[in-house]
């Protein structure tokens, strides 16, 4: 009993300690994306990588801005982070009472998320990597054909839009050991801005079309993935300096060479 309690201590301390992030291995695999390329489902083979088991938290991001003052609220150039950057924090270096240390950090721009991942020798996942891991649930590597699961994810997203996300880790991890991918928040991907370009990128006006929701739906090969469509539409509407209360991030790394 005592040993169990002792074992819990490090876990309890984690959110406050500026811990080293926990990356879990994601094996290589075949995958069919719900996004279409030129009207067809994208079948791809993903190389192995490792992914943060949890989104980056307020506590972790605080450590980052302490070490990299150029990313503090008030210091960062407007081109790299909009006016609402980290606005939910009481002061630039004090998150304050209204947010929790182990809540995912949100209101961070794509630039800031990218810089954070770079600071731990990692990068933002690309969309396919995110989608591949996000397709899993606690028992299946690909749970996307389950209508109950799909409806459940959709309800979870609809109920919470516009608010800060809750704390991480309240639900079981998926088969890879990754938590909170689908329900808690939307996450930046490295290539989010290019998810729906016109197939002919040279058509005048195609830049503006990137942000159209109708464009998003048209580019989906699997129309049952409503929650995924909402995610993509939400991300596509943002410019990289924008921030939103429900948009945070996690990072991935190339696998360690043996």
């Amino acid at each position, binding site marked *: 009993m005592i040993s169990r309690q002792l074992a819990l201590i490090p876990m309890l301390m984690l959110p406050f300690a500026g811990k080293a992030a926990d990356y879990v291995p994601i094996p290589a695999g075949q995958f069919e994306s719900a996004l279409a390329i030129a009207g067809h489902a994208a*079948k791809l*083979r993903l190389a192995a990588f490792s992914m943060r088991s949890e989104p980056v938290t307020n506590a972790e991001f605080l450590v980052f801005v302490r070490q990299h003052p150029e990313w503090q609220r008030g210091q960062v150039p407007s081109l790299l982070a909009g006016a609402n950057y980290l606005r939910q924090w009481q002061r630039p270096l004090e998150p304050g009472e209204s947010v929790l240390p182990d809540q995912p950090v949100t209101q961070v721009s794509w630039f800031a998320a990218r810089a954070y991942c770079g600071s731990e020798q990692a990068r933002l996942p690309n969309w396919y990597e995110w989608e591949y891991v996000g397709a899993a649930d606690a028992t299946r590597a690909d749970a996307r054909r389950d209508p109950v699961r799909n409806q459940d994810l959709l309800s979870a997203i609809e109920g919470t839009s516009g608010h800060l996300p809750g704390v991480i880790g309240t639900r079981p991890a998926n088969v890879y050991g990754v938590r909170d991918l689908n329900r808690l928040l939307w996450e930046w991907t490295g290539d989010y801005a*290019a998810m729906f370009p016109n*197939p002919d*990128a040279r058509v005048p006006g195609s*830049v503006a079309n990137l942000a159209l929701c109708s464009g998003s739906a048209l580019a989906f090969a699997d129309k049952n993935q409503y929650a995924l469509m909402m995610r993509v539409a939400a991300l596509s509407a943002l410019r990289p300096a924008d921030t939103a209360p429900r948009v945070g991030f996690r990072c991935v790394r190339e696998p360690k060479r043996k």
Partner: protein
Amino acid sequence: MMMQRRLTTLFALALLSFVAVASSPPSSRVVADSVYAIPMLTLRDQQGQLFDFASLRGKPRLVGMFYGSCQMACPLEIEYLKHLQRVVAAGSGKSISVLLVSFDPARDDLAMLRKVAGEHHVWPPAFRLARTERGDEGMLAGVLGIAYRQLPGGGFSHNVRVSLLDAQGRIVAATDASGRPAPAFLRSVDEALKNP
């Protein structure tokens, strides 16, 4: 005599340092909406020369991105910019330099940059093709409104956008680099060259 000379020197030094202090804040600080405010990005051009992106500050220029194995959009982008440079030179007698940075540094090594440069006959300082040596070219893409995504086949899905930067690095106009240069864009280039 000696004293006087020393005093003169001191006075000159003092004056110099005053001028340096007085003039340094506006010129050394990157303005907040300048693309040169991105984190440090070290590039290498097709002649092998290393330079920091932010060191380009001081003159207006055209900045875009490309990738070497691109068959369609990027060759057209380069030819468009060459044409635009000729039109600007013919009209105003001034030159506007171009920088295109690869968003595929894994494959666009120096040999690839040279190959593309050779095919299009573009050379520094007027027309630089460059790859990232240190830093994150994705940050540059973000501030320039350039989006790209690697496709399963190895190619990229991307848009084409070339920005006209003023001397401070503010984006004053942009083009998708297709067709003929638009008169409004050409006017912006002329304006930028007139008021650097």
